[in-house]
C-alpha cells in the first residue's frame, strides 16, 4: 500500500514543539515548586538576616568574635551600583572587583537563583529522556534544531519567571523584615533595567544548562553537576553585567549577549544531540 508522506515544515514543527514544551512547563509541578522557592527564599533571607543583624558569635576555640551583618536595605539583595561602596553599603561587594566577599549578604542574593534555574532546566530535560518522550520525539523528528530552540525558549521563560518571582519575593520580604526601600545612587528606572538585565542573562545560563542536560540526558545528577560546575565560571560576571544602576545600554548588552550565547550554545546542544546516542 503506497502512503503519501506529507511535508512537515520547520515552522510547523517548531510551533507544535513550542506549544508542547510550554504546556509541559506550565503543567509541571517542578516549575511551580521552583517559582515558589524563588518567591519564598528572598523573604526568608531578608527576614532571617535582619533578625540576626548585629548578633555577635564567639568561636570557642580561638575566642574570635564575629558580628553578623544583615542587609542594610532591600536593594542590596539585587546587587550593587557600579561604583562600589556607596549606595548599597559596604556589605554588598559582590560585584566589587574579583575579590571574594564571603559575607552572607553578598552570597545570598538574586544571583544564586541562576543555580536554581539549573535545577529546573536539568530536571525538566532529564524527564524527556527518562520517560521515553525524547525517544518518541526524535524518532518522528529527524531535525534536532526545533527541540533545542523550543527547549531554550521554554527554559528561558521558566528561569525568567524564577527571577521575577525572586524580585517579587524580595520586595515582600523587605516589607516583612522592615528594611528601608531607599534608593541611593540609582532610581526605579535603573532598578527595572537591572532586573531586566538579570532576566535576560537567564538565556545564557539556561543555554549552558541545556547543553549539560543533553550531555547528561536521563542522568540528571550528571547534568546538575556539570551545570553547577560550568555555571560557577559565569556566576561572577552576572553582578558586573547587571548592576543596580544599570541603564538601557546594560539591557541591550545583556540582550545581545544572551541571544548570542543562546544561539552558540544552542548549536552545541544540537551537535551533541546529533552526534550522541539518544537512548
Amino acid at each position, binding site marked *: *500500500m*503506497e*502512503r503519501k*508522506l*506529507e*511535508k*512537515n515544515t520547520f515552522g*510547523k*514543527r517548531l*510551533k*507544535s*514543539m513550542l*506549544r*508542547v514544551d510550554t*504546556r*509541559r512547563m506550565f*503543567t*509541571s*509541578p517542578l516549575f511551580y515548586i521552583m517559582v515558589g522557592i524563588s518567591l519564598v527564599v528572598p523573604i526568608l533571607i531578608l527576614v532571617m538576616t535582619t533578625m540576626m543583624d548585629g548578633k555577635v558569635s564567639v568561636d570557642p576555640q580561638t575566642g574570635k568574635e564575629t558580628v553578623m551583618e544583615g542587609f542594610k536595605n532591600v536593594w542590596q539583595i539585587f546587587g550593587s551600583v557600579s561604583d562600589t561602596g556607596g549606595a548599597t553599603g559596604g556589605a554588598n561587594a559582590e560585584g566589587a572587583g574579583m575579590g571574594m566577599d564571603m559575607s552572607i549578604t553578598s552570597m545570598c542574593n538574586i544571583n544564586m537563583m541562576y543555580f536554581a534555574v539549573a535545577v529546573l532546566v536539568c530536571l525538566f530535560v532529564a*524527564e524527556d529522556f*527518562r*520517560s*521515553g*518522550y*525524547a*525517544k*518518541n*520525539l*526524535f*524518532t*518522528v*523528528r*529527524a*531535525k534536532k534544531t526545533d527541540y533545542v530552540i523550543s527547549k531554550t525558549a521554554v527554559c528561558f521563560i521558566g528561569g525568567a519567571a524564577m527571577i521575577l518571582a525572586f524580585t517579587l519575593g524580595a520586595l515582600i520580604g523587605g516589607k516583612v523584615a522592615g528594611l528601608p526601600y531607599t534608593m541611593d545612587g540609582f532610581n526605579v528606572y535603573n532598578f527595572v533595567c537591572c532586573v531586566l538585565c538579570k532576566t535576560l542573562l537567564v538565556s545564557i545560563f539556561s543555554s549552558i544548562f541545556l547543553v549539560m542536560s543533553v550531555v547528561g540526558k536521563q542522568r540528571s545528577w550528571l547534568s546538575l553537576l556539570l551545570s553547577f560546575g560550568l555555571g560557577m565560571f559565569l556566576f561572577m560576571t552576572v553582578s558586573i553585567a547587571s548592576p543596580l544602576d544599570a541603564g538601557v545600554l546594560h539591557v541591550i548588552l545583556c540582550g545581545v549577549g544572551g541571544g548570542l550565547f543562546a544561539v552558540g550554545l544552542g548549536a552545541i546542544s544540537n551537535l551533541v544531540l546529533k*552526534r550522541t*546516542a*539518544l*537512548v
Partner: protein
Amino acid sequence: MNAVEIRNLTKNFGAKQALNGLNMTVPEGAIYGFIGENGSGKSTTEKIICGLLHQSGGEVRLFGKEQTDVDVRAKMGVLIEAPGCFAGLTVWNNLMLQAENLSLPKPQEKVRDVLKLVRMEGAAGNKYKNCSLGMKQRIGIAMALLGEPALLVLDEPINGLDADGLRIMREVLTDVAKRGCTVIVSSHILGELEKVATHYGIVRGGKMIREMTAEELENSCRSFVALQAKDMARANALLRAKYVRVEEDEKGYLRVYDQVSVESVVEYLYRYGVVVSEVGTDKIGLEEYYIDLMQGEK
C-alpha cells in the same frame, strides 16, 4: 516498495561489535517478527532504524528514502523500552501532548480513535503512573499510532502481559496492519509472534541469519509423527533403533521427525508387539524452528 531496507549495517560500542553487516528487508504492510537471543542486536537495529543510534557503517533506507529524511521520519511510530509518557499526567493528556507534537488536525478525535483501537477508552482519565503494565504497553502503542504511522517499531511489546493483555495486543497489531501500517515487532514470546507475524527475521551475533515469510516458515517447519503407546519404554527403544531423530515431548508423546508415514510407524511397532494407543501428525512451530536453527548455527 520495501518499508525498510538495510544493507551491511554495522554498529560498534567501543571494542564490542553489536551489529556485524546485518541485512534486513521489510516489505510494506508486513508484520515483521524480529527474533534473536538477548544481545543479538535486535534493539540496536531498531534504535538505528528510529534514528536514536548512529550506525558505524552500512545503509538504512525507509520507504526508499534516506533514514534521516524528515518526511519519512514524521511517519514513524515507536515503542522502545519506555512508552514516552509523563507519570503525573493522565492518559488523555499524555496522548494530547503527543498529538500536538505531531501537529495533528482534530487531535481530540485522533486520540479518541487510538484509545479505541488499543481498547483503552475507559482509562483515558487515569493517571499514567496508576496504569498496569499491560495498560502502559497499550498506551505506548497508542502514542506510537497517533500520527497514523506508515512504520511502527515495537521492541518487546508483549513482555509481561497476561493472557488477556496478549490477546488484546494481538488484535491491536492485526488491526494496525489492516490499516496498511508496516510493523516491526521484536519479542521472545515466539508462540505469540507466530500468531500475527507475516514475515520473520532471525538475527544472531549481529547478523541476519534467516529472513522468510510466514508461508516459508510453514514449509520449512518439519512435520513429525507423534504417538503414545501402551509400552512407551519399548516403543521408544524400537523407534530409536530404526529412525534417525526420535524425541519425547513435554506432554509425553514420542515424536518421529523422519520422513515417514503414520501407517509405516504403527505397522513397524505392531510387528514388534507394541500397540499404539494414539497417533497423529503435526508440524513444529516457530519456537522449535528457532531452537533448531540456533542449535544448527552453534
